[in-house]
């Protein structure tokens, strides 16, 4: 190994784990200095790369079907799991009864999906309760753009002061979660491209009063904390439904 080969190799691997490196350096003072320089540089590179890491925030983990298949909603996984189990003799009768009930009641797949979606939205509202604060501090424009622009091509800018913007996972998709300051308190907006629904669905729960609106190939949840916010929620929802253009 000559000096040129050694220097090329040590710059690629300052730990000198390559064959013949140590032997060459032992007999060449200039190359030893070069090695020292590269190793010192590497120490600084290592420190520079070790940027601060934010706290671990686990996404909402969807249930997984037994047997390692693709995940489904709670209902779906329940039905499928029972199909793979070895049923007792009476299970056939019970299954027939369930099928009959489903046929009579007529719960279509889309309706179940919407129910699951609503459940996820309400669970997420509980999870991020701290986002709904009364404040006059707007979220940084760049943060807002980073959260919204991947999925939304256009939106009415006049809906209110945006004070919270976060990319959140709902129903297995990363979507924009915003909070604006309404006249009577914070209003949460969850923009859900690709989550199509047939008609508006009221959203209600503890400190949750709002609506899930169909908007093109997606939907938008507009949620306040008090019942007397519903008129304003209706106005915001209309503005969004008329102005939002999805990117996806």
């Amino acid at each position, binding site marked *: 190994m000559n000096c040129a080969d050694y220097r090329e190799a040590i710059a*690629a691997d300052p730990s000198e784990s390559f064959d013949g490196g140590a032997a060459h350096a032992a007999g060449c003072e200039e190359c030893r200095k070069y090695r020292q*320089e590269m190793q010192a540089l590497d120490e600084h590179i290592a*420190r520079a*790369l070790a940027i601060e890491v934010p706290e671990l925030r686990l*996404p909402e983990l969807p249930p997984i079907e037994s047997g390692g298949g693709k995940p489904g909603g709670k209902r779906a996984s329940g039905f499928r799991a029972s199909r793979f189990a070895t049923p007792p003799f009476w299970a056939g009768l019970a299954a027939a009864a369930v099928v009959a009930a489903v046929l009579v009641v007529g719960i279509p797949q889309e309706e179940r999906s919407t129910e699951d979606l609503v459940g996820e939205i309400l669970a997420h509202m509980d999870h991020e309760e701290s986002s709904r604060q009364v404040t006059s501090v707007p979220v940084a424009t760049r943060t807002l753009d*980073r959260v919204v622009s991947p999925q939304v091509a256009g939106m009415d800018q006049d809906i209110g002061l945006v004070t919270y913007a976060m990319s959140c996972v709902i129903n297995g998709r990363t979507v924009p979660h915003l909070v604006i300051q309404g006249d009577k308190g914070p209003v949460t907006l969850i923009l859900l491209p690709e989550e199509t629904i047939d008609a508006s669905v009221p959203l209600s729960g503890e400190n949750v009063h709002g609506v899930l609106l169909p908007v093109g190939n997606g939907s938008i949840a507009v949620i306040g904390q008090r019942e007397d916010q519903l008129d304003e929620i209706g106005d915001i929802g209309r503005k969004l439904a008329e102005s939002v253009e999805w990117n996806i």
Partner: protein
Amino acid sequence: MHTSADFERRQRFERLVSTFHPALYRYAAWLSRDPGIAEVVVQESLLRAWRSLDALREDEAAKQWLLTIVRRENARYFERKNLNMVDIDNLSAAEAATIAETGEPDLDDVREAIYGLDIEYREPLVLQVLMGYSTSEIAELLGIRQGAVLTRLHRARLKLRDILSADGCRFALRDNR
């Protein structure tokens, strides 16, 4: 109803994720050069990892498995959003500050110089220095020949040394004097 198998699966996932989260975040941050995008990419990656956890046979292979997921998810993110990789000249002061809050100007210079490297040089450097990967492991992860990895690493360090010397930082040379 949750079974003990569900519980164990979740425990395994949380154990792996809490162990490797710093590495995953830093890898994503240095790939995307944007802390916000890195967080989104890591979140998506964790979700993907959760779904396919059963494909991971041995926990010893978890780091490489998770890094591969992050790498693909990062590429997917930029494809999906039809974005170019972030240009160093377009980084806002706020973003630069997020990455460079060391209080040590020389260290910030090194960080900025690494930011300025093209992805083909930056990525193997991160994998080698930060993740402790060998050149053959980097070659496997990136899907390129080991010789190409060696060339990129060699050029990356020379570029950094030149940038830092030109900036008057001379960080790399100081320890020899």
